[in-house]
C-alpha cells in the first residue's frame, strides 16, 4: 500500500499528526465550535423542525388572537399529533357547538407530553380541551422531550410548552443536556443529502397548506394511505408513568376548571377487521375513561375508507376531515347538553 508515493506522503503526514497532539484548548474549542454548528444545523436547517415550529407559532398566535376577540367566552382547544393537524377543522367545530375553537395540533413525533401541554397551555377556567391523540404515542412514557419537540421548543424560545398540564416538566433535564441533544444525526443528514441530490422538496408538507381554520392539507398525487391490519390494544395505558401522566392531566383540568376530554383519531383499517378493531378500541376507551372523559362516536377511531386519507392512515382529506370534525362537534355538544 505504501509503495505509491502519494499514499506514502499521506501516511507520513498521519504519523506526524499522531505524534503532535493538539493543545487541550484546541480540542475543547473544536468541540464547542462543532456543538454550535451542529445545533445551528438542527435549529435552522432542519426542514421538519422548521415547519412545525412555524405551524405552532401560527397556531399559538391564532389562539391568542381569538381569545382577544371572544373575551371571556368559553373556548374549545383541540390538541394532538398530526392526526389532529390534518383532520380537525376548527370552523366546523364552532358551527356545531357554537363555541370558538382552535386547532393546536402538532406532530406525534413531539411526544404526548409536549402535545398535551400545548393543548392545555392557552385554556382558561371553563374552557374545553379535546385531546385528539394517536394511541401509539400513549403506549410508553417519555423519559425526556423527544428531539423534534426539543428543536421546535428551543428554536423559538418558549412556545406552548411549560404553561400547560406539564408545567416545567420539560425543563427538568439540565439545559446543557438538552442543548447537547440538538445533534442532527446521521439519519437526518443522510436523508437531507439524498433529498438535495434528488432535487425534491426538503419536507413533504408546506406552510402554504396550513389553512385559517387550523387544518393542514397537502397536494399529493400518491395513492391513498395503506389500510392497517388489526392492532391489538393490549397493554395500552398499562405503563405506570403514562398512567401518572394522565392522572396529572386530569388533576390539572380540575384545578384549572377545564373540561379535558379524550377522543380517538380516525384511522384507516382493512374492511374485514373493521368491526373487531372498533370493539378493541371500545375496550381501550373504557380504560382511558378511568382518567379522562371520552368523546365517543360511531366510528370508534376506525374506518375502512382509505380514499378519505392522504399520505398516512391518520391524515384526512378536506371533506372527510370536515365530516369527522362535525361528528366530533355533535358528540361534544350532546355531552355538554347532557351535563356531567
Amino acid at each position, binding site marked *: 500500500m505504501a509503495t505509491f508515493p502519494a499514499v506514502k506522503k499521506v501516511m507520513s503526514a498521519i504519523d506526524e499528526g*499522531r505524534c503532535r*497532539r493538539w493543545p*487541550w484548548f484546541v480540542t475543547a474549542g473544536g468541540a464547542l465550535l462543532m456543538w454550535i454548528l451542529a445545533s445551528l444545523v438542527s435549529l435552522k436547517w432542519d426542514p421538519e423542525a422548521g415547519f412545525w415550529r412555524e405551524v405552532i407559532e401560527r397556531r399559538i398566535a391564532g389562539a391568542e388572537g381569538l381569545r382577544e376577540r371572544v373575551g371571556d367566552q368559553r373556548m374549545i382547544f383541540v390538541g394532538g399529533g398530526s392526526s389532529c393537524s390534518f383532520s380537525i377543522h376548527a370552523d366546523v367545530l364552532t358551527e356545531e357547538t357554537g363555541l370558538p375553537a382552535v386547532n393546536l395540533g402538532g406532530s406525534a413525533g413531539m411526544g404526548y407530553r409536549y402535545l398535551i401541554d400545548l393543548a392545555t397551555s392557552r385554556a382558561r377556567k371553563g374552557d374545553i380541551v379535546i385531546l385528539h391523540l394517536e394511541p401509539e404515542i400513549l403506549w410508553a412514557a417519555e423519559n425526556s422531550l423527544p428531539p423534534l419537540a426539543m428543536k421546535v421548543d428551543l428554536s423559538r424560545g418558549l412556545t406552548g410548552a411549560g404553561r400547560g398540564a406539564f408545567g416545567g416538566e420539560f425543563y427538568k433535564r439540565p439545559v446543557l*443536556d438538552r442543548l447537547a441533544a440538538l445533534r442532527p444525526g446521521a*439519519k437526518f443528514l443522510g436523508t437531507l443529502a439524498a433529498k438535495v441530490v434528488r432535487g425534491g422538496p426538503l419536507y413533504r408538507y408546506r406552510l402554504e397548506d396550513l389553512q385559517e381554520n387550523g387544518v393542514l392539507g397537502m397536494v399529493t398525487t400518491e395513492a391513498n394511505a395503506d389500510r392497517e391490519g388489526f392492532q391489538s390494544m393490549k397493554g395500552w395505558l398499562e405503563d405506570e408513568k403514562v398512567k401518572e401522566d394522565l392522572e396529572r392531566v386530569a388533576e390539572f383540568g380540575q384545578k384549572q376548571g377545564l373540561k379535558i376530554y379524550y377522543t380517538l383519531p380516525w384511522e384507516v383499517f382493512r374492511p374485514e377487521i373493521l368491526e373487531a378493531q372498533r370493539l378493541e378500541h371500545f375496550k381501550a376507551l373504557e380504560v382511558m375513561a378511568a382518567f379522562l372523559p371520552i368523546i365517543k362516536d360511531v366510528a370508534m377511531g376506525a374506518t375502512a375508507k382509505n380514499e378519505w386519507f392522504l399520505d398516512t392512515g391518520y391524515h384526512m382529506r378536506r371533506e372527510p376531515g370536515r365530516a369527522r370534525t362535525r361528528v366530533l362537534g355533535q358528540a361534544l355538544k350532546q355531552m355538554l347538553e347532557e351535563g356531567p
Partner: protein
Amino acid sequence: MNFVSMTFWLALVGGFAVLSSIRILLGKPAWFERTGFIVLSLFLLGMESIETVFIFSWVVGMGYVGLSCRRKALLGIVIPLILAPLGYYKYSGFFTEVFCGERPMAHVLIPMGISFYTFQVISCVIDRFREEESRPSLVDYLNFASFFPQIVAGPIERRSDLLPQVKSLKFVLRREALEEGLPWIVLGLFLKLALAENFALLDRELRPVAVNAVQVWLEAGFFAFRIYFDFAGYSFIALGLARCFGIRLTLNFESPYLARNLQDFWRQWHVTLSRWFRDYVYFPLGGSQVKFWAINLIVVFLVSGLWHGAGWNFLIWGGLHGVGVWACMMTGKHRLPSFVSWGTTMLFVTLAWIFFMENDWKVAWEKVQMLASPAKYQLSLGALLGIFEGPKTVILALMILALTGGVMIGEWYSKRSGELYGLFQNRWLQLALIAGVFFLAPASESRFIYFNF
C-alpha cells in the same frame, strides 16, 4: 455515571472545581491529594443513586475486612459476603426461577457497576494472600476500589497494576496528562455516540419480525458492531479520563474484530475480564495442566456467560464460546489462510451474539434455525429493501456501514503500525471525530449496554 450525559460532565467539572478550591483554601495539604479523589468518586457514584453508594460501600467494606484477615481460611466467609449483593440483585431471580419455577424479583434493578467493582475487590483480597502482599492503607484501597473512571464498567484492574499508581495520585489536572487523555475520550465518544447509537437506531428500524434470513444476519451484524463500539467507547473514555489524572488503565479492547481465531478474540475482547477468569477461575481449576482441561475451559466460559447476565441465553452464549475456543485449541496446528481464519472467527462471533442479544433463548434458537434454512433467504432487491423500515433507514445503514469500514481499516492500520488505535490519535482525525460526535450521533438519550452487567 453515564459518560455520554452532559450531567456527568457537569458534575465532574463542578465537583473537581469545588474540591480543587477547597484544596487551595486548605493550603494544598498532602492528605487531600488522594482523599479528594475518594470524595469526587463517591459524589459521582451518588449521583446515580444513594442505594448504589450503600451497596458499593458494603462490597468495599467487606473487601477491606478480607484484606485485614490474618488467616486465608477466613476468605471462605468474606468472599461470599462480598458476593452477596451481586447474588441478590443479579442472580436470585434467575435461580429462584430455575428451582421454583417463577421469577419473584422482576422489579429489582441491578445496581450500576456491581459486577465490575465486586470482581475488582475480590481480586485485590485474593492477591493479598496469593502474592503475600501487605494490606494497603485505607485511603489507597478506597481509591483503588472507587476510582471513578472505571468504577461502573471497568476495566477490572489488578492490585499490582492500579494500587501503586493511586498511591501517587495528585488532585491536579496537568496539561500534559490532559492532552494525553483527551484523544482517548474523543475516540470513545465517537465510537459510542456516532457508531454504537446509530447501530441501535438501525436495529430499531428493521422490520419488527424477521421473515427473511438476511434480516437475521443484519440484526446480528448490527448488534456485533453496536456492542463493540458501545463497550470499547466506554472503555476508551474511562482510559482517557484516568490518563487526565495521570493513571494508566489497561486497554480493555485490542481490536478484537481483527482477531484470526477465537483464542485471540478473547485475548483482545474485554481484556481485563478474560484475565480475571483466567487467573481466578481457570488456573485454580488446574488450567490446561490437567487431564480435563477442556471441561475447565467450558466451565470458565459458562461462568463468563453468567457474569454477563442471569439467563439461559447468556449461558448458551458462554458455552458456545467455550466450545469454540476448545475447538480452536484442538485444531491449532492446522493453519488456514489469514482471511479465511479471520472470516470464520467473525462468523462464529456474530452467530453467537444472537444468543446474547435475545433475552429468550428460544427466540434466538428460532433465528439460528432460520439462518440454516435456505428457503428463508430472499435475495431480490425488493426483498432486501423490505427489511428496512424505509429509504431513510437504507441511507443510514449505508452511511454507518461505510464509517464502520473506515474505523476497521484504521484499526488494522494502527495494529500493523504497532500502536493499537494509534491512527485515531492523529490530531486532524481527532477534529473529524469531534465533528462526527456532534453531527452524526442521534439526538436520543443513551446509556451503555454494559451498565446492565
